[in-house]
């Protein structure tokens, strides 16, 4: 636990140091840049809440990837599942107009169903044809990408718009704002809590974790690994779908071309940095959201392009993941030396 914390903090600090060198070389003042970065993401109540809202799709897709990877299935279909979730929520929001206390849960549920259908498709292909989900989920991303683009260009196109997008969904389907606090943040924390409970406390979660680490052992222990595989695929698809639904319901309130942005791939990256831990995924998700939110402010105040944040993210991933192995080696070497000294004395 302490080692994980040291590893994460050291990786982040080193990465920021490297980023600073990069900025210096290009003639910027790194101190000013970082001040602007954190001022616009954490500096005020408003920027903090904006950061939290931006964290929603990152954390949820990250959670999806973490749970999948830790349980065995290599679900890399978060981008497609997110889009399908967004489409399901949008279409329902276009045609239904129920009171909010029914509308909101319904749209959220449909978003999850959309994501789960898309990952379930991959699970079925594994079941029927023994096709690897590693490949099928990746390929289904492309299909979802073009399918949703078609859907918002033709059947659900907003005729008053100039680029592919749907009309706005019914107002009752908008995630309510309490002051500047968008309630999608609440849904995110609820989802994190629920997944944490399922993963670490339930029987199913125990079996998933065991299967993820040694599936032969789990099978011999009486675990129904096929059933668990399907459950994990559906749950992780639903989480990515939820991310998509919340993006629509909290933000533009309609499906716009390019809606998925890079959220899902960032989520996969977050899962890797977090080593598939649930709490770590939340923390790294919040941190990456801080960087991305601050990037806009940084661009406003300084001349540094916001792309530098992508470089920073990549360097953090490299340093934290690589550092994980190296810190082990280092601490082992240290312990060896210390114990030898004790023995020799």
């Amino acid at each position, binding site marked *: 636990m302490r080692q994980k914390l040291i590893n994460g903090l050291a990786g982040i600090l080193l990465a920021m140091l490297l980023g600073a060198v990069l900025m210096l070389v290009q003639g910027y003042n790194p101190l000013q840049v970082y001040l602007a970065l954190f001022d616009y993401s954490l500096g005020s109540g408003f920027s903090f809440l904006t950061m939290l809202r931006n964290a929603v799709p990152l954390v949820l897709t990250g959670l999806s990837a973490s749970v999948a990877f830790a349980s065995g299935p290599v679900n890399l279909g978060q981008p497609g599942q997110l889009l399908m979730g967004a489409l399901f929520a949008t279409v329902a929001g276009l045609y239904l107009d129920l009171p909010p206390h029914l509308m909101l849960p319904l749209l959220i549920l449909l978003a999850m169903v959309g994501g789960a259908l898309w990952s379930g498709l991959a699970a079925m292909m594994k079941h029927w044809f023994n096709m690897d989900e590693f490949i099928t989920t990746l390929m289904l991303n492309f299909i979802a990408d073009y399918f949703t683009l078609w859907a918002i260009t033709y059947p659900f196109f907003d005729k008053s718009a100039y680029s592919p997008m749907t009309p706005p969904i019914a107002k009752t389907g908008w995630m309510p704002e309490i002051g500047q606090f968008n309630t999608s943040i609440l849904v995110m924390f609820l989802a994190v809590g629920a997944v944490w409970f399922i993963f670490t406390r339930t*029987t199913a979660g125990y079996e998933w974790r*065991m299967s993820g680490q040694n599936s032969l052992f789990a099978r011999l222990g009486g675990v129904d690994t096929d059933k668990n595989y399907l459950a994990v695929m559906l749950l992780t698809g639903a989480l990515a779908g939820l991310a998509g639904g919340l993006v629509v319901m909290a933000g533009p309130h309609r499906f716009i071309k390019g809606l998925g942005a890079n959220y899902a791939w960032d989520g996969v990256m977050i899962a890797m940095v977090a080593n598939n831990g649930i709490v770590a995924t939340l923390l790294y998700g919040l941190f990456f959201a801080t960087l991305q939110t601050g990037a806009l402010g940084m661009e406003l105040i300084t001349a540094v392009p916001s792309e530098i944040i992508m470089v920073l993210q990549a360097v953090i991933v490299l340093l934290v993941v690589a550092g994980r192995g190296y810190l082990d080696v280092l601490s082992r070497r240290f312990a*060896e030396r210390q114990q030898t000294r004790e023995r020799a004395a």
Partner: protein
Amino acid sequence: MNAIIEMKDIIKVFPPNVVALDDVSVRFEEGKIHAIVGENGAGKSTLMKVLYGMHAANSGSIYYKGDKVDFHNPGEAIASGIGMVHQEILLIPEYTIWQNVILGVEPVGLLGQIDAQKARQQVQKRIDEYHFNLDPDDYVSDISIAARQKVEILKLLYRNVSILILDEPTSVLTPQEIPKLFDELRRLRQNGHTILFISHHLDEVLELSDRTTVLKRGRNVGTVSTDQTSKKELARMMVGREVVFKTKREDHEVGEKVFELEKLSYTDPEGRLRLKDIDIQVHAGEIVGIAGVEGNGQFELVNMIMGLIPQREGSLIVDGEDLRQASILNRREKISFVSQDRGNMGATLSASIKENVIMTHHRLDGRFTTLAGHVMDYQEASAFTAQVRDQFSIVMDDDEDLFRSLSGGNQQKVILGRELLLDTPFILLDQPTRGLDVGSIEYVHRQILDMRREGRALLLLSADLDELFRMSDRILVLNRGEIVADLETDETTIEEVGYLMLKGLRDETETD
């Protein structure tokens, strides 16, 4: 006598808390066979790997022919004339023997091409010199394990190594092959080679070695002249207490038929017949042993009984229930299973001890879950882990520690505890003492006999004939997927079983 190698005050630590070598000093004399014995984890292999340059010692020094040396890698050790044969054999199966031998030190012609003729001749010369009875043109994939081991030794001799380190060389051999290896090692000694020989089979050590060094928990307990010691004394030095070599199997009446396998056959996906018409019956209070050279169908038989391979033919009845098509979980209500492969089948090394202990119990015993079986009760799991720990005298700190952090013997005790406490009428044991040390083996054997006394039915697969003879009431011999003999243990001999095991395997052993 002058010491050709002297290791002084060697300390080697493997964090977090393993002191593999704790100030070990030892001398090896030229032209002798030295045995290094000790339980698992005593530091035998580590000591040799430090000498061989595979591990760097944290402190201490090594003298070779009077000079201080410090090998940074095995290549440097070999260049100085020290070579090591590891437990696992590392050859390229698609290459011939001579190609494997010269790999890395190829004699080359003018243009840098391999001088195949010269290489072959050189290898043949060594083979003749040491009476190795190998054909240099044979492909490694076609020769027996024993022959492969000889190729490993040949590789080192080709590199003019004068000191040979052998890490448990007999562990991969059948009983018939061991004396041949010993003859070859004695011949090497006659030629002036020094041999360091790691083992935990005391009979072998007494038969072969001139001097024996006993390690215990990383310390040198003593070096003795082998002709002045006994099995009992060595065992006491190793374990630190008296070891009962004959675990007693008392006579008693067997009960009803518990396990019945009939007409089981299996053809693998490549179309090879792996099991043929297998019939096995085990009664309550009976231990049935299955003898056989590895790879004669044991793996398939175990996987079939456990339900990893679907059974298409024959029947499987345990405790009156037809399990032929049952799920693994249903089988587990009747079958406990201790596998030979702890890290792969028996446990998850990267999970906690507790998580390993409650596997299967979490489904079969309601007390580990609440809310209709959906939520785990980890407190109950901790209590159960403590019970297993006390009942099976497992040495461990915290049940949240990784399973990996336990020693091999303790890992096996955890698995044994988990399985035996499932309280099933039938227990399947696949080489349950593989890789364990003398003390742990004795412990496992006592547990097995306790189960027999309690009236369980046990099926024991083992490659160790001594173990089979000590434990089993009946011995079945498995050869090429067929049961070729069904023998009462008291009416047969190790030699007979050994012969039956190899019968039909002649063509493979002929090269020896």
